[in-house]
């Protein structure tokens, strides 16, 4: 018995050193040297400062102003925001695009909570896009414009969703829609090796390109 416990102790010490420390540190060392960009979070810079990670979604909201022109706050003292029409809008997120406290929305398929959330999300998208796409109806909306992602920080939207938003963006930025469609095409991440995954438009990279090509007036 003592001999068995002794062996177990030595085995745990050795595996901890080799697999618990040496292995991750070696992978970190190689990763930092060979793929420093990816290993540190695929950070993107704009105007000399880091503005996000190209594979982590973020929100593009602007503060809502009250009648006096001051930013509105809710009862908790948090700023009230709304989608900024000058930017491509990402998917709805239950976590407010938190990248340091992630969780699933956990909405079930037959959930009333989900149904009401979809109704509100549909209304919000219609309010944003209808001025530019007359006659737009709930049934026309791409699912990903209304339903939450898994991570809460999905960096992509579907091509259909991006094209729907192209009318608004073209009008807001004062550029032809064809130009917006070109930018969508240029910022679409295709299927890996042509087969793996589904194509999606990278919202952050699209919006950065948009700011470069057609700065907001």
């Amino acid at each position, binding site marked *: 018995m003592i001999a068995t416990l002794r062996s177990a102790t030595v085995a745990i010490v050795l595996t901890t050193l080799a697999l618990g420390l040496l292995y*991750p540190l070696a992978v970190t060392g190689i990763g930092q040297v060979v793929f420093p960009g990816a290993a540190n979070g695929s950070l993107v810079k704009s105007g000399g400062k880091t503005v996000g990670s190209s594979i982590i979604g973020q929100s593009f909201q602007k503060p809502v102003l009250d009648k006096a022109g001051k930013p509105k706050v809710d009862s908790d003292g948090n700023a009230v925001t709304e989608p900024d029409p000058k930017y491509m809008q990402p998917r709805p997120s239950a976590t407010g695009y938190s990248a340091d406290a992630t969780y*699933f929305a956990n909405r*079930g398929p037959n959930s*009333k909570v989900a149904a009401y959330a979809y109704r509100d999300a549909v209304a919000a998208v219609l309010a944003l896009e209808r001025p530019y796409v007359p006659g737009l109806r709930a049934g026309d909306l791409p699912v990903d414009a209304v339903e939450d992602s*898994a991570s809460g920080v999905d960096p992509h939207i579907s091509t259909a969703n991006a094209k729907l938003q192209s009318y608004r963006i073209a009008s807001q930025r004062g550029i032809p829609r064809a130009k917006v469609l070109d930018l969508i095409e240029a910022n679409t991440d295709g299927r890996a090796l042509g087969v793996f995954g589904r194509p999606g438009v990278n919202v952050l990279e699209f919006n950065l390109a948009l700011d470069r090509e057609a700065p907001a007036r």
Partner: protein
Amino acid sequence: MGMDLLELAIILGFVVLTTPILGAYMARVFTGERTLLSPVLAPAERLWCRLLRTSPGRGQDWKEYAKATVAFSLLSWLVLYLILRTQTLHPWNPQDFHSAPWDATFNTVSSFVTNTNWQYYGGETTMTYFSQMAGLALQNFVSAAVGIAVAVALIRGLANRSGGNHIGNFWVDLFRGCFYVLLPIAFIAALVLISQGVLQTLGGYLGIDGVGGLSQTLARGPVASQEAIKELGTNGGGFFNVNSSMPFENSNGLTNALEIWLILAIPAALTSTYGRLVGNRRQGWMIFWVMGLLFLASVAIVFFAERHGTPAQQWAGIAGQNMEGKEVRFGTGGSALWAAVTTVTSCGAVNAAMESLTGIGSLSPFGGMSMSEVVFGGVGSGLYGMLVFALLAVFIGGLMVGRTPEFLGKKVEAREMKLATLSILVTPLTALIVAGIALGTDYGAASIFAAGKPQGFSESLYAYMSQANNNGSAFAGYTGFVQPNAGSLGSYGITFADLAGGFVMLFARFLPMLIALALAGSLATKRSIPPSAGTMRTDTPTFGVLLGGTVLLVGALTFVPTLLLGPLAQGLTDQLF
């Protein structure tokens, strides 16, 4: 649709392709033959043996083997508990995390030592980098190696023709599983993952001001090294709370495909290792295809179900597939394949929210767990579980044709059947009894998210099925750890859920494991009878059907009534709850 099916076919084709290669390699490793890595690892193994005062030549009978397995797991448990409860002393703790309370930690530790990786905690809001690397990821290696070791021991028992009672040496098997099998694959996979965007840094969390002017904090850490072994060892415990749906864990279609392969690779290849070691490759392939066909059925259910919308979605007037809780880069196809893969194996990592699957789609994960995780299953545990089912199938077949049942020339007698039956009943009974207690009393109520609804029933049932099967995926609304603020200050555990789950995991892992070893011991000493004209062959498609049928029937008889109340009730109605 076409592209989704092509993607699926390529990934699964790759699994079929690597099965004999990896299977042959593992057969060589566990019989001590030279391999490509021997020049480096053979000296390391000698050093290991010297420090542990053992040697490959020193065989153990099943009781000694079991004693070593239990001693190692028990000490692992204690060490991990100590690590997780002393987080304030750790190096690499950039967020100054405190430790989770005792009950939540009890659950987490039991979860990782049993290869379950059920997570009541969110990694990026509670765990130091040191805990993640030297605590949790270490258990991802060794708990997987323990599973492989036990499977190999059972194979040795079946293959033994010498009449001796030795089934191998646990310490040597542990080394070989960790260093010859898991480490090299994990190492390469981790580097590939990094190249695609998976994090690997000891740098702290990063606050940024986004393009729209809103701030965001990027949680970071040594993710890729843990991600690789988490999938390869069918562990499933995410660095992040949202697991492999987080782009920092699973950044694109390629990483998704690689991670799916990692999950399936070893459980699938062990069928080939088995065929080689017992000297009947046909039988190895027969088991592979029984697993494979049951798995394909599971994929088909969720793949097609998720292409339809949900009742909630239809109520709001939205057409299209069910993208709730799914990432655009995986779509419904890549999410559905993953959901099936992660639950027929005992992996439990997720790339989409299980709780947001359609009612019918969720039958796939529920079904995978109903079949006691023997369809590929956990590394090692899947194969030894399936071999126990094979004994049951042989017995049923023997009754039908009126012959004493034999498996690989070994008579299956009363003792083996008692052990096999007990082993097969442990997991479902544990799951159902504890889920019953959680649902029938007030104890479980505090954990439920969708209270008073069929969804809440599904959450509870899933929680205990997942923990009993050492799976670890979740209908994640179900909680045992309440954390008002990041940093685990002011957090508290829900004691019933934490303890019940912890004991379920320990019980349903180690009892079947000890039974597998007892079977190995009992079969090892049996004389092998040469096959005759009347012997029922166990490497034919006919036996495959019998084996698959046994697995399905046991699962269905045990779980259909409960599945009617949760997932099926939701899947068959448009009503909202």
